Structure formats: structure tokens, C-alpha cells
């Protein structure tokens, strides 16, 4: 499989950022959780929210640098 990045030759940085949003959307909310008592931990939603807030800030900065 190739990298699932939107093809956007004029905005490689932006495409990479956007792909990160799509990736986090999937790895944090998707995938199977095979859990039992022996599972130590799994990313929980509250932490993800915090990270997404940080991501919003970083994307805004990135777009500002691109003059968008």
C-alpha cells in the first residue's frame, strides 16, 4: 500500500498535516480493542481531545506560515 496522503503538489506540508488528522482519526477511534484484564491501557477519548486541541493550534500555525 502507498501512503494515504491527498495528492496536492502545491501544498505538500498542508497535505501532510491533513493526513495526520485523518490518521489520528483512524488510529485513535478505529481499530479493534482486544482487551481483557491483562491489558494495561488504551488511548482514551479525553486524552485524544487534548491532543486534537494541540493539533488545531499547530495546523493554524502551519497554514499561517504558508500564507493561506
Amino acid at each position, binding site marked *: 500500500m502507498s501512503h*494515504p496522503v491527498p495528492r496536492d503538489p502545491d501544498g505538500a506540508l498542508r497535505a501532510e498535516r491533513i493526513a*495526520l488528522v485523518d490518521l*489520528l482519526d483512524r488510529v485513535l477511534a*478505529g481499530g479493534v480493542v*482486544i482487551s481483557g484484564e*491483562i491489558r494495561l491501557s488504551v488511548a482514551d477519548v479525553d486524552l*485524544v481531545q487534548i491532543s486534537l486541541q494541540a493539533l488545531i493550534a499547530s*495546523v493554524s500555525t502551519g497554514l499561517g506560515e504558508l500564507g493561506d
Partner: protein
Amino acid sequence: MTEPHAVWGYAVTARLSPDRLAGLSGVAGPPVRTVAAAGLTAAVSTVSLAEFGEQPLRRRLEDLAWLEATARAHHQVIDALPGPAIPLRLATIYRDDASLAGLLAQRQAELAAGLRQVTERAEWGVKLFAAERPAVADAPERAGAGPGLSYLRRRGHQLSAAEQARQADAVLAEQVHAELRGMAAAAQLRPAQAAELTGEPRTAMLLNAAYLVDDGTAARFAAAVRELGRRHRTRIELTGPWPPYSFALPGTGP
């Protein structure tokens, strides 16, 4: 062992020779290896509890740079696995190989069915954005109408234009989803992403969907997405192929 370790899980596949994973390294560097049980194989790597124990992990998940590196490493391993794979959610960590092997055996039937569902299929992401619309023009004046009636007509015209736009967006999202779902083995609607995250802060995301598509249909599916964008003169974005994150187990379909 000199320091306490745990086991990071990437994905579950059918029987898989450990040789097929040679050269693959996972989160935090150590090589990816296999844990086999009940005809299934989990791709895993060893992680240090000092970094990946529950408390340190909680702290690190809030660090975006760490989260990005870890998410990409997790994804790269899953993406590199030969054959169908059921991804595990990020940061699913087990005490040791034996406990994971026990869980594989315990959920063997469900996992085997999940693998059958994703065989020779991949996940594709589709995001549909609202078209940018010009501001609503006033209704044309009609000769003979008094000022009160003119006002009501103007106001009604504006309100109905906004309502019509909203309804048109909903109908468009429904049409696009119905057409693409018809070409997919399964579909999953995801919450629309915040406008700040999409790089398109001025246009609302109308649809954020994932489709599980047969590999043989993928080219036709991609062409259909492009055609929908052209036909409806709107921005529609296709990403993939992804491992089947949104279709990890049966029952996650439509």
C-alpha cells in the same frame, strides 16, 4: 530482563511467518515480532514500561509530537504487513506475549470472521465539502406591492434561501454517500472534522465517510469519487488505501 517491559500490539493477521517481518521496526525502535495462537498471528513489539506504562503513556499522549511519531510508526507497521490485517487501536498494550495469546484464542472466531471481511479489500476515506455560495440577493421588487408586503417578501426570500441551501447540502451528502456505499462492501460514517483541522476553514464538511472497497473495484471507486465532485461542482477528497481501521470487526459495517 533488566527493566520491566510490555507488549505493544499492531494488528492481527492470519498465520504469518516471523520471517515476513524481518527488518520492520515499530514504535520506539525495537523490531516487530509475532505472537501466534489459535491460527492467528499478532504483530507486536516490546516497549519499556518506563515509557509505555499507564501513567507515562497518559502524559505522552498529550504531547502532539510524540503522538504523531507514534501514530505514524504504528500505521507503518500495519501498512507493511503482508495479507489482510485487523488493526489494533493505538496504544493497546499487553503485559506479556502469553496474555495476548490467550486473548487471541478467546476471540478466535470473531477475529477470523473479521479477517475474512477485510481480505482483498481496503478502506478509502471520502470527505465532501459544501460548495461556496454567493450571498443571497434580495427578491426582485414587484410593482404594486406596498412597503410591508415588500419587506415580508424580502425576508422570506432570505430565510428560504438559507434553508434551501441547508437542505441541498443534506441531500447532496445523502446522494454521494448512497452512490459510494453502493460500490462498497461496507461503509462507516465518521463525525465531520472541525473546520480548523481540514485546511478548509471556510467550507463546512458535509460528509466524512469510510468505505471498505474490493481491491478489484478500487479504480472504479476512485473514478466515481472524481466524477461526483465534477457533477456536483464541489470539493470531494479521497484518501487511501488505508488498512481497515474503520472496519476492524464485523458489525462495524452499515
